[in-house]
């Protein structure tokens, strides 16, 4: 790592992580660190393994080789109870919110509080309203998820994610499919909540421009490996062809435009069986 | 959906279910005092039991006082051995008749106890001495036809 010095043990520490799925090597030796209090982005094209990486960090998948430590504990062979203990300090925002459709916005945000604390109802009410206020949706507390727009649903889900003041917040494609205003809102919320809670965040995305504005460090994943990393300034100035193609959205480069096929001339003039 | 509304409906639902079970038990079934209390065993041998089945009632004066427990076959004497459970409250004289009767014309068969006059009573495990086998309908009909035919050819 170049210019980011961790003062304490990193929240997430990954060394040489391998993962296979159905005889396919998804991750081939990942080295990644999320220092305390920082927002780290994991970027890459579709199918590069970044979502798998996040699932591994959250314990939804089990790694086959290498070391994966979250909050200093290796979660490779951890039992369910211990995993649930760790998860109480984590929050994960799913791509489309994953709100519970049979409950109101209020009940959704109150869910972790009801399940994991014995706090009195009035206190829970205050906490829920505070969280909703932080994402700007306090007035929507009585609505049902079906009555919310995509951006609103995601913000409610964010309020739910931070309900227990987690120390590690993970975002799965938080910018996907949002209008420019909502994009800006979510981006700002990610940064502000991280700093306000003193937490660490991981953002899995391929929205480069928004991420470069809010994160502290970026890892680029391609074909199961980290092929580039750095601070936003370093990335913008990078001359690595892959990074350059990704950041500036170039049509052709290390990631080719044409799907591998026979030479064009041959296909047009050749026989019928391709 | 309010909690109280759900609770109310679930309560009604469960109450209805239990009511239905109760209805089936009492109005439809025979869950009323027809339990055979602390039964004792009696045996009876028959040449022909007709359509008698296990769990068939044993009646005295028409009232159910026991049930047929199981039916065995004695291959030495070529007889059916019927083992019955009789309610311990009811005792019978040693010379009681065990007959196989039919409920109605085509109904199921049951054992009727016709008490005799002996002072000594049947003890648990005893075999009843006096029995009457089932009436086989075909034999009855052929007897009837035979006697009708005999009538016809008898000198007038």
């Amino acid at each position, binding site marked *: 790592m170049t210019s980011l010095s961790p003062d304490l043990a990193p929240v997430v520490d990954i060394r040489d992580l391998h993962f296979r799925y159905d005889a396919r090597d998804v991750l081939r030796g990942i080295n990644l660190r999320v220092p305390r209090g920082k927002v780290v982005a994991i970027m890459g094209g579709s199918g590069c393994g970044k979502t798998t990486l996040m699932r591994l960090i*959250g314990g*939804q998948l089990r790694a086959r080789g290498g070391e994966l430590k979250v909050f200093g504990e290796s979660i490779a062979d951890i039992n369910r109870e211990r*995993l*649930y*203990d760790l*998860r*109480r300090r*984590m929050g*994960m925002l*799913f*791509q*489309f919110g*994953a*709100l*519970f*459709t049979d409950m109101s916005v209020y009940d959704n945000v109150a*869910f*972790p509080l009801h*399940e*994991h604390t014995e706090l009195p109802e009035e206190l829970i009410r205050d906490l829920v309203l505070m969280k909703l206020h932080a994402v700007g949706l306090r007035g929507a507390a009585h609505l049902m998820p079906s009555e919310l727009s995509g951006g609103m649903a995601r913000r409610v*889900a964010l309020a*739910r994610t931070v309900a227990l003041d987690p120390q590690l917040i993970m975002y799965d494609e938080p910018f996907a499919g949002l209008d420019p205003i909502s994009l800006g809102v979510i981006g700002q919320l990610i940064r502000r909540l991280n700093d306000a809670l003193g937490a660490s965040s991981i953002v899995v995305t391929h929205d480069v421009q928004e991420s470069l504005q809010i994160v502290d460090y970026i890892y680029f994943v391609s074909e199961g490996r980290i092929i580039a990393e750095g601070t936003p300034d370093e990335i913008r100035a990078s001359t690595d062809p892959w990074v350059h193609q990704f950041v500036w959205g170039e049509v052709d480069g290390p990631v080719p435009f044409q799907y591998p096929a026979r030479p064009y001339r041959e296909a047009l003039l050749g026989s019928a069986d391709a | *959906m309010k*909690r109280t509304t*759900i*609770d109310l*409906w*679930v309560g*009604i*639902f*469960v109450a*209805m*279910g*239990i*009511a*239905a*079970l109760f*209805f*089936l*038990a009492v*109005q*439809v*079934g*025979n*869950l009323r005092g027809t339990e055979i209390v602390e039964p004792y065993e009696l045996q009876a041998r028959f040449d022909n039991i007709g359509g008698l089945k296990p*769990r068939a009632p044993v009646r005295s004066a028409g009232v159910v006082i026991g049930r047929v427990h199981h039916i065995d076959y004695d291959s030495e004497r070529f007889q059916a051995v019927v083992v019955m459970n009789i309610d311990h409250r009811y005792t019978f004289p040693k010379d009681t008749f065990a007959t196989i009767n039919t409920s109605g014309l*085509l109904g199921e068969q049951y054992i009727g106890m016709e008490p005799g006059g002996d002072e000594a009573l049947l003890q648990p495990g005893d075999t009843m001495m006096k029995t009457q086998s089932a009436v086989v309908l075909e034999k009855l009909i052929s007897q009837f036809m035979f006697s009708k035919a005999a009538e016809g050819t008898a000198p007038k």
Partner: protein
Amino acid sequence: MPEILLRPFVRLGHSVVSAIWRLGFASRFLAAIVLMSGTTFRRPYLLMREIYFSGVLSLIIILVSGLFVGMVLALHGYDTLSRYGSEEWLGVLVALSLTRELGPVLAGLLFASRAGSAITAEIGLMKATEQLSAMDMMAVNPVARVVAPRFWGGVISMPLLAAMFSAMGVLGGYLVGVVQIGVDPGSFWSQMQSQVDFERDVLGGVVKSVVFGIAVALIAVFEGYDSDATAEGVSRATTRTVVTSALVILGLDFVLTAFMF
């Protein structure tokens, strides 16, 4: 031998093997559900809600169907019995058919189609929209919180619904037999009471409905939990719930009837 002839057999063998595999999964799932049922019983509201959604909301279809089945039984039964002058046995015919067989089986089939498919769709949809994953990530066990209450809700609702089906059927039989056709009410009820044995017939029917309830509830939650996380997958899963439940009910019915009667 040409491959095209072998293909249907290969597919058949494949489906049998995968069916047995799924049976294994389903059994393990049942064990997991039972082990994680603590939450369901410690928070009765969860269970109440599920009894409401699978039981109370099935009331109408069960009561109406039960009534009609009883009425039809009486019609057919009278037609046949009157030929032998045995109309007084109509009550017996209706009551025994219902308590022993039609009550548990038909209520089970109706329950599977109405409540079972709804449960499968609900759980499948939660899976497809990542609600189950979200719950898991919030350190709340989805099997304990979502699956187990629905399972027990089904198990508790089924026997009650079957009893109500049979009871309505008997009433339907009474309405047609006595009120409409004119069979003597005294003999209708008294013959029924003398011939229908509580232990054998009524309780036997209840045992059947409990077994069916466990089967249908398990199938419904399993298919939902195991469905492919797409719209198509959920729709396939609901169909499978209804079809598998029907086959399992009829199969178990045969086994139980042979055993008990």
